[in-house]
């Protein structure tokens, strides 16, 4: 690693944690009596190689990308926004509740735009309390965003069961949005156009962070707060802006997922994407393009993993173990990197 050219070294730094995690995880599978090679092969095949699976993988990428975009903003500002689950779900429920209500009176395009914006707004609002507590009082945002997340998940359920409930169904869920009213499909695939929104968001965030004054200000804040104050940046406003932008993007992800795929939100539904996207974003070193590539990989893992849960008896929660291993190996490799002797 010390003598490789820079781009190759970067690639190794990204691939190595994944490879190590797969290896150690595979070893654990072996211990539990499952064949890891068969498992990984199955996942790969179902996730990427079959056209149906590939489309599902790509569809799954949309919410992940939007959450990743939101997290990039927060992490660059040095803010630990760990409340993505709550922000995501509340926005999804909002969109799911609003869209059917508007669909009767407004044209499809307006309904979709309004519902997407509503989702983003709700996500942003839900982050306001932790953001203000952090900006004003320096209160640790890890705790506040986590608490708001738990609250948000419960609140979503309450909204579904009490307020937005579709009386016609046995399982509590919101009134379903008919397929014609949802986000249009791309060409003749099953992938919806929300994917384009998501891709645009990630690339947009990347450019925002690297090429604008706002992005530079955010990065100064995230790297050295004292320097930000010294440079005359309005720290409180930056924190609020970064936080709300982050949560708005995550909320947009929730709205996109509902309006593009499900059309409804069932009670007790919580995909908990946050746990997957956080390590993904770190692995990508907060770089937008790397995020897109890695999201493809993780989405394939999830799609294939779901299939594997049914066919091979390895539950979906195994992916969580892999994620944790990736994080640990990532941190380890960063550490080994830092230990290299520096240029004097």
């Amino acid at each position, binding site marked *: 690693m010390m003598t490789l050219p820079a781009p190759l070294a970067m690639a190794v730094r990204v691939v190595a944690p994944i490879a190590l995690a797969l290896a150690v995880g595979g070893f654990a599978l072996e211990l539990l009596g499952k064949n890891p090679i068969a498992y990984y092969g199955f996942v790969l095949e179902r996730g990427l190689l079959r056209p149906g699976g590939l489309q599902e993988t790509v569809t799954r990428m949309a919410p992940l990308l939007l959450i990743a975009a939101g997290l990039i903003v927060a992490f660059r500002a040095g803010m630990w926004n760990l409340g993505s689950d709550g922000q995501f779900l509340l926005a999804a429920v909002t969109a799911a509740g609003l869209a059917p209500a508007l669909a009767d009176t407004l044209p499809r395009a307006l309904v979709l735009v309004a519902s997407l914006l509503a989702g983003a707004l709700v996500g942003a609002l839900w982050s306001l*309390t932790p953001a203000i507590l952090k900006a004003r009082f320096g209160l640790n945002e890890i705790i506040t965003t986590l*608490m*708001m997340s738990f609250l948000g998940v419960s609140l979503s359920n309450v909204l579904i069961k009490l307020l937005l409930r579709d009386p016609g169904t046995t399982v509590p869920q919101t009134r379903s949005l008919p397929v014609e009213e949802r986000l249009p499909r791309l060409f003749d695939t099953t992938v919806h156009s929300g994917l384009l929104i998501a891709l645009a968001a990630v690339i947009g965030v990347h450019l925002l962070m690297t090429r604008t004054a706002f992005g530079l200000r955010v990065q100064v804040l995230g790297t050295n707060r004292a320097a930000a104050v010294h440079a005359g940046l309005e720290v409180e406003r930056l924190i609020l802006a970064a936080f709300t932008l982050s949560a708005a993007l995550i909320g947009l992800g929730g709205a996109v997922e509902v309006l593009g795929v499900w059309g409804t939100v069932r009670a007790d539904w919580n995909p908990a994407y946050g*746990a997957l996207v956080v390590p993904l974003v770190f692995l990508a070193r907060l770089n937008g393009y790397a995020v897109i590539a890695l999201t493809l990989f993780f989405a394939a893992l999830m799609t294939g993993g779901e299939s594997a849960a049914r066919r091979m008896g390895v539950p979906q929660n195994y*992916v969580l173990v892999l*994620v*944790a291993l990736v994080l640990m190996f990532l*941190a380890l490799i960063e550490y080994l990197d830092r230990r290299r002797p520096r240029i004097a």
Partner: protein
Amino acid sequence: MSALLTEPFLTALIAGAVTAGMPLLLAGLGEQISEKAGVLNIGIEGMMLLGAYTGFVVTYTTGSFALGFLGGALGGMLASLIVLVLCIRLGLNQIVIGIAVTVGMQGLTSLLHYFEFSREYPRLAAAPVWVLPVLGQIPVLGKALFSHTALVYASVVLVAVLTWVFRATHWGLDLEAAGQRPAALDAAGVDVLRTRAAAVLSTGFLSGLGGAYLSIVGAGIFVPFMTGGAGFIGIVLAMLARGRPLWVLLGAILFGVSLALTTALQVAGIDVPTDVVQMLPFVVVMIVLVVFARHSMLPPALGSPYTRGER
């Protein structure tokens, strides 16, 4: 409304509060030790889960509750070992590793549970209860407060013991120095990393114990993800208690009451949707955080690894 003041309701509420508050108390005390020493332990949720699982397994296989609690505590310590090696010894980012431990343990325990218990979902017998001699006869309070597993009484005693340890032993002094000014501790000849390692292991022990209590006594069964944020509430308790174990106890009682309201209300015949009541503890947390925002204090060296020579 009068249904609320009946003996069954109050007993259920208070007893339930104790049962619900115990894991929070243990997690909070454990986290307090780490935080004092300057280690931010986000992975405590994962440590509790591993403790819940191992505690359950040991009790199930051996039939002994005492061994089960011990097994849970050791399970928590095992999980904290990851933090010890990666964060204390190697100095990796405490928050990233904390997330990894939580997520990893969530995955690991649910995986193990799937392979071992998802077919029969075995339940444990009720844990043995130790009714205190005179106090146990008091109406309402006797059954509610003084008829619990021995571990409950031990935990309350632990609060007093920890208060003394923090103030009057060398270890307490070392912890404070490790969190406030680790360079001063180093210069005084004490191994900073070893102090922090001991703190982390203690946290693992206590939170594992808390998790074990949750699965053995609280539920009698292990369910994946069963801690449901208890570890994070423990972090909040430690943050707000500012180094005083007694305040952790008070906070745990407060949250225990709000958590126990569901079952108590059901006993009283009032039907409130579970989700609303589940929101209650987190709403209380947020209100407390907002009101006391100015007063929460964290040690300056929190979260930063210590390297000698770097003053």
